């Protein structure tokens, strides 16, 4: 009797041992699955239907065909691309400059670093309204300052100008997120050991050569991290464009996210919005896989 009971007790203890990690994982996985897996299948389902007040009708690939022939969708996609590319370029140029600056001998480094956090930390909505204030052609400080310099600002309407609007929105994003790039690059710079620099100095390299052959290669991992994360965020950008221009003037600042939002909530065309969402998902999915693959390589290293 005794040995059998002992065996069953051991087995149940063993089972509990094995189940323990799964029990720990369960709440998180369930929560995530409920609120991400279902939406994904919903999007798949809706994208092949048309929703009307009467109900839904299966339309097959019609939404996707329409997407392929929709000049507004393409324009939104192209604008998102242009936006992303220009914002990335500026954010990395400025971010790198700032990182190099604060990596060198500068007094009050901790203070500057702390202050530079601000644009990134505040709610994007607040960033949006702040810049609406600044861009206001009549009483905003931007035109005010330009007028002090003697410029005629009557044609400078920034967010209202179809040609300049996108650039204006890009500037806001650059303002908001350069600190993000800066912080990551700074951490990357500070992680570079002294030896390569020593060697370069002994070799007599110029600052530019040192930068190109020592700093940049060693900074590459951090650069890639920042690049991938920023790209993913830019592609799905919504908050600031919504506050600044709502996609106007005309269609000049319409991004993919905004286009999907309007299709869903202003025209109530959920099927089409779902199809467009899938297109966006493909892009972000590819980017996230890149990122994860990169992380895995880092893990193994």
């Amino acid at each position, binding site marked *: 009797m005794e040995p059998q009971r002992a065996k069953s007790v051991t087995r149940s203890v063993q089972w509990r041992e094995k189940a*323990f990690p799964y029990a720990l994982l369960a*709440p998180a996985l369930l929560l995530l699955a409920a609120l991400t897996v*279902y939406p994904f299948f919903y999007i798949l389902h809706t994208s092949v239907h048309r929703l009307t007040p009467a109900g839904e009708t299966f339309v097959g690939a019609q939404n996707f065909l329409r997407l392929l022939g929709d000049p507004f969708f393409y324009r939104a996609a192209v604008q998102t691309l242009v936006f992303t590319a220009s914002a990335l370029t500026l954010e990395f140029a400025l971010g790198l400059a700032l990182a190099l600056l604060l990596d060198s001998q500068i007094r009050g480094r901790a203070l500057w670093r702390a*202050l*530079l956090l601000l644009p990134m930390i505040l*709610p994007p909505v*607040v960033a949006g*309204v702040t810049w609406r204030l600044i861009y206001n052609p009549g009483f905003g400080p931007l035109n005010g300052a330009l007028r002090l310099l003697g410029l005629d600002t009557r044609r400078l309407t920034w967010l209202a100008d179809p040609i300049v609007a996108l650039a204006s929105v890009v500037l806001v994003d650059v303002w908001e997120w350069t600190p993000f790039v800066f*912080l990551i690059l700074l951490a990357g710079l500070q*992680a570079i050991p002294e030896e390569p620099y020593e060697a370069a100095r002994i070799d007599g390299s110029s600052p530019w050569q040192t930068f190109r052959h020592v700093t940049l290669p060693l900074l590459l991992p951090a650069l890639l991290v920042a690049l991938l994360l920023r790209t993913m965020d830019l592609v799905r950008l919504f908050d600031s464009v919504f506050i600044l221009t709502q996609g106007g003037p005309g269609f000049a600042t319409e991004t993919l996210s905004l286009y999907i939002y309007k299709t869903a909530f202003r025209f109530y065309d959920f099927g089409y919005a779902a199809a467009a969402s899938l297109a966006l998902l493909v892009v972000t999915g590819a980017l996230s896989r890149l990122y994860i693959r990169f992380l895995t390589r880092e893990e193994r290293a």
Partner: protein
Amino acid sequence: MRRRAATFGKYALLAVFLLFFLFPLYWLVLTSVKTQAEQFASPPVWWPRSFTTDYYAGLFQSTTGWLAFNSLLVAAGSTLVALAAGTLAAYALSRFRLPWRLNQRLGHWILSTRMFPPIVSIVPLFLIMRGLDLVDTRAALVAAYSVFNLPFVVWMMKGFFDELPRELEEAALVDGDSRFGAFRRIILPLVRPGLAATAIFCMIVAWNEFLFALILTQTEGALTLPVGIANQVTQYEIRWGAMSAAGVVAMTPMFVFALAVQRHLVRGLSFGAVKG
């Protein structure tokens, strides 16, 4: 001589950068204390002649107080949920070797959910909430933000757990402690700074969030501060004073929080890829 020019150049450049990044915030704070006449003045008033606290006083009388309260409640609630579920999951992924390379696979899946564009999940999420009759409740936002923050919590905490040697638990187990007991008594206290940092990150994300709050809330029972600020943009005019005062209120706690977690900021921002 060249050295000095270079140093001067550096500080000059830094000054330009600081001006660029900080001036807009200065202007926001300024607008919140300017009188209306000075707000619309052209040329702009760089330093007001008279200050007014009307807009801040107005915040207390209006529903903005409620909105801040909602934001706080939702942020705190979702942080607790995300922290609880995420820390447990992170511990599991860190300490236990699961079959079928699940550690890696689950970890990557969890991270990929963070990359989902919010606009894509908003409609189905909205339908779920409507089905559960949770539209316009703080619970809906708590649930949504918990999901937002879970992947982040898992990856942050996993990083912290990975840094602790296994021997710590082994010792406790040998002494007769249970798995969970060892976790609670030995490991958790050691990662408290990590928990704090992660919690603050979650608070910031939840507090700043806009799109979900925009769609899922309708009345001041659940409306959050970012949506309240956006609502100041009416059809005929923009209420700059009220909006900037609310903006200052919205941004100040975040800055305080960010300063508190400065040390872990880079690690958090990069999901653990770059050690700050």
